[in-house]
Structures are given as structure tokens and as C-alpha cells.
């Protein structure tokens, strides 16, 4: 046998596009990076249930309500796939939740914006889930096995989310003038926060270099953002609506749109806890967890009793 170090074997696997599995040796920083990224992703799914949950009781029809319930339930499921993926890296569910509840872990800044009208539910499904899908399609080939497998499941389920969102937008955009204005207002408010979802520009993204080196990410923030704009602008145009960016222009040379960067100061501000809904979102999460404590205790006590009666 050649005298290879664990690190060589790890690098060789990455070079061959093989996946790293939980029991494989991995550099401590790779593990840390993944725990941060996967848990942040899981928290985003769970916190993401809140802005949409806000509209379940006010959905405009029974059909819309059923669809929204199913979508929000999916988000909960996605959070659970991702939490178990993170746990394979050696962190417990309790620690993960604690990190969210104490503000130590982050979640996507997008969920700190309010859902003011029904059109926001359309805009979230179409734009926010659309941006998330772009990122997640790439992550299906991420180098960590459990994360990649969770992504495959999630991507299969997400496409309904985006389509239902766009369907809401078409109803509004081709409805009454008031409905059309409501759809435009939602795009105006969600466009730039959605652009922020891909993260800071490559030149200023502190985690990107390692993520690319370790094949956790396979495309950069700026590449994904560009692809999102290229894909979405024709969808906005079909609706007869506009993108709230005066600098948006087709660039024939690069076969893509030129566009304005979102306000990165706002992004940093929202991430560090000062967005319009940060307190409300985290407050709702912590309350739900606390209110559920008696259920967990009762279930644990019941399971213990069952085990005792089997043993007796």
C-alpha cells in the first residue's frame, strides 16, 4: 500500500468527484463549513414556514388554502431532511435548534421581510423558491453525500412551489387593475431581497473560496444570480409587469442581462438582526419550541413506560 495520508485520500475523492460520507475522514474546517451551511439551510426552511403560514387562514379560496398548506408542510419536511443531514456531521438536533433560538446560527435574510398581501405569496413561490431552486439544483452535486441526497428529494418537491407561485401571479396580473397593481407591488418589494439570496458578490464572499475548493458549491454567487435574472426577466415580461431596476438591460455580448446589485448594506443589516421581521420570526420560533415542550416530555415519558412494561 502507498503511504497516503487521510488528507490525500480526501483530496483524491474530491478530485474524482466522489462523495464524502459521514464515516469518512474529513478536514475539521470542511466539517465546520458544512455544519454552518447545512444548518443555516435547515433553519431557513423552518423559518420560511412563518411568512407563508401567515396567509393560510386568509387564502382566497379553498384550493389556494390546500395548496399553501401543502407547500408549508413541504418546507417543514425540507427542514427535517436537512437537520438529519447536519446531524451526520456530529452535532445534535438540540444544539442545532439552540443555535437558531439563541441567534448564534443564521437563516436566509429573505424571511425577515413581511408578507403584506396575497400577491406576496405568489412572489415568494415564484421568485424566492425560484432562487432557492437555482441554488439547490447545484447542491444536488455537492461533495457531502447526505447533503446531496437531501437536495435531490428537495428539488423534486420544490418545482410545485415555484409553479404555484407563478400561477398566483398570472391570476393577479391578468385580473382587475387593482390585482395587477398588487402583483407589481409584490415584485417591487421582493426583487432585490431575492437577489440577495445568492449571497454577497464573489469578491466579497468570505466563505466562497473554500466552498468551491471543497466542491460544496460548484458555481459562484454571481454566476447563480446572473442565471436567475436571465431566467426570470422573460417571466416578468409575460405578466406585463416590470422589474424595479432602471439599469436592467439585455447585453448581447454576454448573452445575459446587466442589472443593479442589491443594496448590500441592507443585506448586512438584515443578517445582523435588524430587518423588518427578525424579532417576530425568531420570537415565533422560540415560542413554538417552548409551547411544544410538554408534548416532547409526554412522548418521552410514554416511550419510557412502554419500554418498562416490555422489560417486565
Amino acid at each position, binding site marked *: *500500500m502507498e503511504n497516503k495520508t487521510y488528507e490525500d485520500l480526501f483530496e483524491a475523492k474530491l478530485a474524482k468527484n466522489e462523495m464524502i*460520507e459521514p*464515516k*469518512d*475522514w474529513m478536514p475539521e474546517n470542511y466539517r465546520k463549513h458544512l455544519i454552518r451551511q447545512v444548518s443555516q439551510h435547515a433553519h431557513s426552511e423552518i423559518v420560511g414556514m412563518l411568512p407563508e403560514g401567515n396567509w393560510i387562514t386568509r387564502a382566497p379560496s379553498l384550493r389556494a388554502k390546500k395548496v399553501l398548506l401543502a407547500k408549508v*408542510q*413541504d418546507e417543514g*419536511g425540507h427542514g*427535517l*431532511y436537512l437537520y*438529519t443531514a447536519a*446531524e451526520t456531521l456530529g452535532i*445534535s*438536533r*438540540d444544539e442545532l435548534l439552540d443555535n437558531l433560538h439563541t441567534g448564534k446560527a443564521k437563516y436566509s435574510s429573505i424571511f425577515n421581510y413581511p408578507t403584506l398581501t396575497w400577491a406576496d405569496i405568489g412572489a415568494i413561490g415564484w421568485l424566492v423558491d425560484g432562487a432557492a431552486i437555482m441554488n439547490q439544483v447545484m447542491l444536488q452535486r455537492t461533495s457531502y453525500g447526505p447533503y446531496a*441526497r*437531501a437536495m435531490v*428529494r428537495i428539488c423534486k*418537491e420544490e418545482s410545485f412551489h415555484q409553479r404555484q407561485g407563478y400561477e398566483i401571479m398570472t391570476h393577479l396580473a391578468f385580473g382587475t387593475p387593482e390585482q395587477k397593481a398588487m402583483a407589481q407591488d409584490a415584485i417591487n418589494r421582493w426583487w432585490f431581497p431575492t437577489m440577495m439570496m445568492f449571497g454577497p458578490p464573489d469578491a466579497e464572499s468570505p466563505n466562497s473560496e473554500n466552498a468551491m475548493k471543497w466542491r460544496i458549491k460548484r458555481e459562484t454567487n454571481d454566476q447563480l444570480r446572473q442565471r436567475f435574472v436571465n431566467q426570470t426577466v422573460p417571466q416578468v415580461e409575460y405578466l406585463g409587469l416590470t422589474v424595479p431596476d432602471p439599469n436592467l438591460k439585455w447585453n448581447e455580448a454576454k448573452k445575459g442581462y446587466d442589472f443593479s446589485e442589491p443594496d448590500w448594506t441592507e443585506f448586512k443589516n438584515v443578517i445582523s438582526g435588524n430587518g423588518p421581521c427578525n424579532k417576530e420570526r425568531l420570537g415565533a420560533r422560540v415560542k413554538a419550541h417552548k409551547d411544544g415542550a410538554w408534548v*416532547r416530555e409526554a*412522548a*418521552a415519558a*410514554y*416511550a419510557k413506560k*412502554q419500554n418498562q412494561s416490555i422489560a417486565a
Partner: protein
Amino acid sequence: MSDSQGPLWEVFVQKKAGQPFVHCGSLHAFDKEMALQNARDLYTRRNEGMALWVVPSSAITASSPEDMGSFFEPANDKVYRHPTFYQIPDAIGHM
């Protein structure tokens, strides 16, 4: 790993009758009934299966990646376990 979410379980789904059960992920639950119900809600929301197994993760013993080479080595030099190792006269046709 047990915490306030209950122990971890591994979930196996059978897509259709007659097919093997395939691992699809894991979840937390306090007892086996709850594990089964959570598995249904989490992994079969779109008719992905018609039967489920849930197994406590602690009950699973796994081979270790470091020993992979030597552990599976016995199968490496036994080509005679494969049908193509044997010469059959052309006149016999498919066998």
C-alpha cells in the same frame, strides 16, 4: 444520539410490492409508532411508497471506510464467480 427530540431512526421505503426496501433518510421519534407515522408524513407525502420500515439508528452496524480495501478484498480475485468466466461452445447458444 438521543436528545429532547427522541432517538434517531433510519427509514426504509418499499416503492412497490415485490421491490426491495431502500433507505431514504432518518428522523427523530420517541417510539416506534411515532417513528412510523413521522416516516409516513416525512417520506411518503407523494405516494413514494407502499410499505415502510423504521429501525433505531443505534441498531445499525456499518463497515468502516478505512478498512474498505481489506474488508472487500476477498471478492477481488474471484472472477470465476461470474458467468462470463466460462467458455460455452457456440453451438449451444445462449445459456
